[in-house]
């Protein structure tokens, strides 16, 4: 997993609520048996016309948001299907961070396992960020995971919460598996216990 420490990038405003994982990556892209290349299917229903040409009004098709590594979305982002393909599509496209007033639980967990930082900020801050990056798309946001802050060019700073264990995993770029494997003895002892007691 790619470690996450700091990120300075422009941000793409996705002014939509309840963006479910079917929107992030439609089912037609789930027939793959690998993770690679999912970025081409990212948001494909709202990003492309039925003939495959890009919809010019969609935020990711606008020239000013090319290269943005931060996505700013509405509440309940990533709801629905547990498909981790949604996270793979976002990271393959180039996103390293999603900011939202709230994430669905499974999506939030999946993000952390792939080095995609999900940041929860209050709705009014998300509204402010949307206004800011819509007016000035070249705005650079600075994210520092160690200090758990999002800093705007004018110095304005917003703090976010993250579980300390998850933070450490992201900073060091390690996933859960090593930790779980280190618990072998405890797992074996648990399995030796009688059932239904």
């Amino acid at each position, binding site marked *: 997993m790619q470690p996450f420490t700091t990120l300075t990038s422009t941000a793409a405003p996705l002014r939509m609520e309840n963006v479910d994982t079917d929107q992030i990556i439609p089912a*037609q892209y789930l027939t793959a*048996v*690998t993770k690679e290349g999912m970025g081409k299917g990212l948001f494909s229903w709202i990003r492309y016309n039925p003939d495959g040409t890009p919809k010019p009004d969609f935020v990711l098709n606008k020239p000013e948001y090319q290269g943005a590594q931060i996505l700013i979305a509405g509440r309940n982002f990533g709801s629905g299907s*547990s498909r*981790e393909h949604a996270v793979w599509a976002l990271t393959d496209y180039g996103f390293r961070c999603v900011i939202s007033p709230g994430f669905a639980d*499974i999506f939030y967990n999946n993000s952390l396992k792939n080095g995609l930082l999900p940041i929860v900020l209050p709705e009014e801050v998300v509204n402010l960020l949307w206004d800011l990056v819509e007016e000035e798309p070249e705005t650079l946001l600075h994210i520092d995971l160690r200090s758990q802050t999002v800093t705007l060019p004018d110095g304005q700073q917003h703090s976010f919460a993250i579980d300390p264990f998850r933070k450490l995993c992201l900073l060091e770029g390690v996933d*859960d598996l090593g930790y779980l494997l280190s*618990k072998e003895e405890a*797992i074996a002892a648990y399995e030796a216990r009688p059932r239904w007691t």
Partner: protein
Amino acid sequence: MGKTLFEKVWDAHVVAQDEGAPAVLYIDAHLIHEVTSPQAFAMLRERGLKVRRPDKTFATMDHAIPTRSVDIELWPSDAATQVRTLRQNCKDFGITLWDIDGPVQGIVHVVGPEMGVTQPGMTIVCGDSHTSTHGAFGALAFGIGTSEVGHVLATQCLLQKKPKTMAITVDGELGKGVTAKDIILAIIAKNGAGGGAGYVFEYRGSAIRKLSMANRMTICNMSIEGGARAGMIAPDETTFEYIKGRPYAPKGEEWERAVAYWRTLATDEDAVFDRELKLDASELQPMVTYGTNPGQGVPITGRIPYPEELEDPAERRSLISALEYMGLKPGQPMEGQPVDIVFIGSCTNSRIEDLREAAAIVKGKKIADHVWGIVVPGSKSVKAQAEAEGLDRIFIEAGFEWRGAGCSMCLAMNEDKAGAGKYVASTSNRNFQGRQGPGARSLLMSPIMAAAAAVKGRVVDVREMLN
């Protein structure tokens, strides 16, 4: 202080808990399918790991497989690769596979309970968000991503942060024509599609206790549509009766010990939930959704809200974009809305009880000329039972297609897709944009409401067809 059902099951599965770290939670049963497992097996191979407990891992094929009888080997689809990959992975790692060529296959959340794998007090996971279904047995069951599928395959454990608890109490008597599906759609309409994030629901109250296991599964299934990863119902005689004698159920003396333990799982009188929600069953009506998230639903006698009635600007924006996609108008009543397609199936409503209820509505009638209707049983066993009871004949004579078991048009991964702009009266769980096919417009409802819509060619109040 007493404990909730959730807390009892959680506490019984904590293998280790380091300071400042999430709990290491033991998983009793791991269900896998063709779509979300290939990358997890690839990870095992990459790291040279084995499946720790193949005896606690069960595989079937449901998401991408065709529901018409075809030879998978000759089937021209990428999904055939997923089927072959799952077969190979199960063979290489010694995992029980309920194959499409065998007698047991079906939707993972229908087959698990049918086989008796799903039992009270267990922890159950699957790379599928509707794993919440198994909570109907008093199990803690939730969907996971593919990375976590890999973790469970390798260690039989997951790192989990303890969620909060929310009691949803439904007391009172359900009216005629009002079903479990209407209870859960009403809960989600009230609490919002994201309202359960961070919580595990426990459904309780006299109306829940009276429900069959199939109906309880319908409710727990859609916990995720209410934002909760898991939903649970305390086990009782109805639960034990359902499990007894199934292939993986405890037998003999073990059965007695298991039931004695299961009886201890119910939430203690003095236990405290983090949140509570109450509904009066007698006030509920058949529900139908009008929007593109499952919280956008109304009683059949209701109408679509006007954006200006909503105070919250985000909700307003959501409503406007949903209605634009759905081709519906603010203030419009849902009754009378024409439908093009009727889909009866999915892990929410494809069990034998659902098919019996729907068949009773269409028996001796024809579906409307312009309607394409398909019935997709949840498993081969449901299909066989339905055929033994003659339900297949009732559906076919009414003009429905009678299919093989699978997820089908619930997520449109196989060829069963609704066309752009088509209205689908669907017994499934998600009305997301494009969920049932690019541009398709889903109206979620109960099996009897969907059956009634098929006959009339439009959304109707099924109560008018009941005697």
